């Protein structure tokens, strides 16, 4: 079992869903264009054209909106796979209580 599997298995599904909603809300602001039809399975880079920089911007905007602190130490390319994988990473790497 990898570190990420461990984190994922400990994630509260309700929190993950809430994060998926917040990411969906923030995407138009970060990508500076209209974004529709986004689900947890939407590919951030391949389908939406998120770059590594806009991806990081999304994570930091998420922190501000939810007033949370997220550990970015282990944040890797795979975590930006889909909206759901990013929500899962964030849910498993909160430094403050959600």
């Amino acid at each position: 079992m990898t570190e990420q599997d461990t984190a994922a298995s400990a994630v509260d599904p309700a929190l993950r869903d809430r994060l998926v909603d917040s990411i969906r809300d923030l995407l138009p602001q970060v990508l500076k264009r209209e974004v529709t039809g986004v689900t947890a399975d939407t590919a951030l880079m391949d389908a939406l054209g998120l770059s590594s920089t806009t991806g990081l911007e999304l994570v930091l905007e998420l922190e501000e909106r939810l007033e949370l602190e997220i550990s970015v130490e282990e944040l890797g390319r795979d975590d930006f796979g889909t909206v759901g994988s990013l929500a899962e990473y964030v849910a498993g790497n909160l430094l403050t209580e959600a």
Partner: protein
Amino acid sequence: MTALVGVAAWVPPGRVAIEEPAGRLGLSGMQVKIFRRYHRLGEVARDPDGELRDLLRAALERLDALRGREHLVRYVLHARTFPTVVPYPHDPVRQVCEEFGLGHAAVFAVGHHACASGLLALDAAGRLLAADGDPEGLALVLTGEKAFTAEARLVPDTSFFGEGAAACLVAAQGERDRLLAYATELRGDFDTDDPETALEFQRVYADELASAITAAVARAGLAMEDVGVILPHNVNRVAWHQVCRTLGYPRERVVLDNVATTGHVFCADSFVNYRTAQDRGLLRQGEPYVMAAAGAGRGATFSAMAFVH
């Protein structure tokens, strides 16, 4: 096989917070926050009153291996990230060569691999010396530039440049540190302003750099677990964390000490980090290590060299 007879480096004591170049270049607060929080950059080295000649001179003054061997130096190679490092008609490399008794040597610049040009210059120096067939012949590889233009201050979305220099004395063969293998991958297809290609570059960056490292290590007849340390280019911590994930190599064994305090010292990073590794006792006799760098600009280069100390 090419050998490093001596390695010296100089990073000036001056520092500026990354907010200073970021402000001058018009970066947003969010961009600076990403550099600090995620890329773990903090300060960059600056020599506000000095010229490139001063940086190179300071590195050469620390190259003890050169003393008494000046007459044996056949070539002086200045490895550059940028083709133009001073305004015309200044020629600081030739000036320091005259000052240090190297006026007789053939002096030229090596570039086109951007920040990986330092490794290219080591390879070129070794090949030139080997072709000459003079067992006593030496070459000097100089690295270091001034962050004197907007382009030479920032690697977009990646890093800030810091000032410093290194001097490396190279022989065609010798006991230490022996170059075992060199691998470099040139990606001319990234020579475009197309945003899709820029995204693709970001996507493949870690894999390509990891692939250059594994190629050099395999050509040296080694496995990654044999590699004691990696001496990286100092672009940022997160890029190297991703390379380590791809390689399955412990990030603690990549010398990232200088990333937050010097910035990306052009082609000199691996040599600056060599000195840091030596000061920390991380280079052990008989143990292999790797120098690695990626260069981006017009196209991209991913390079790695395996050595034994």
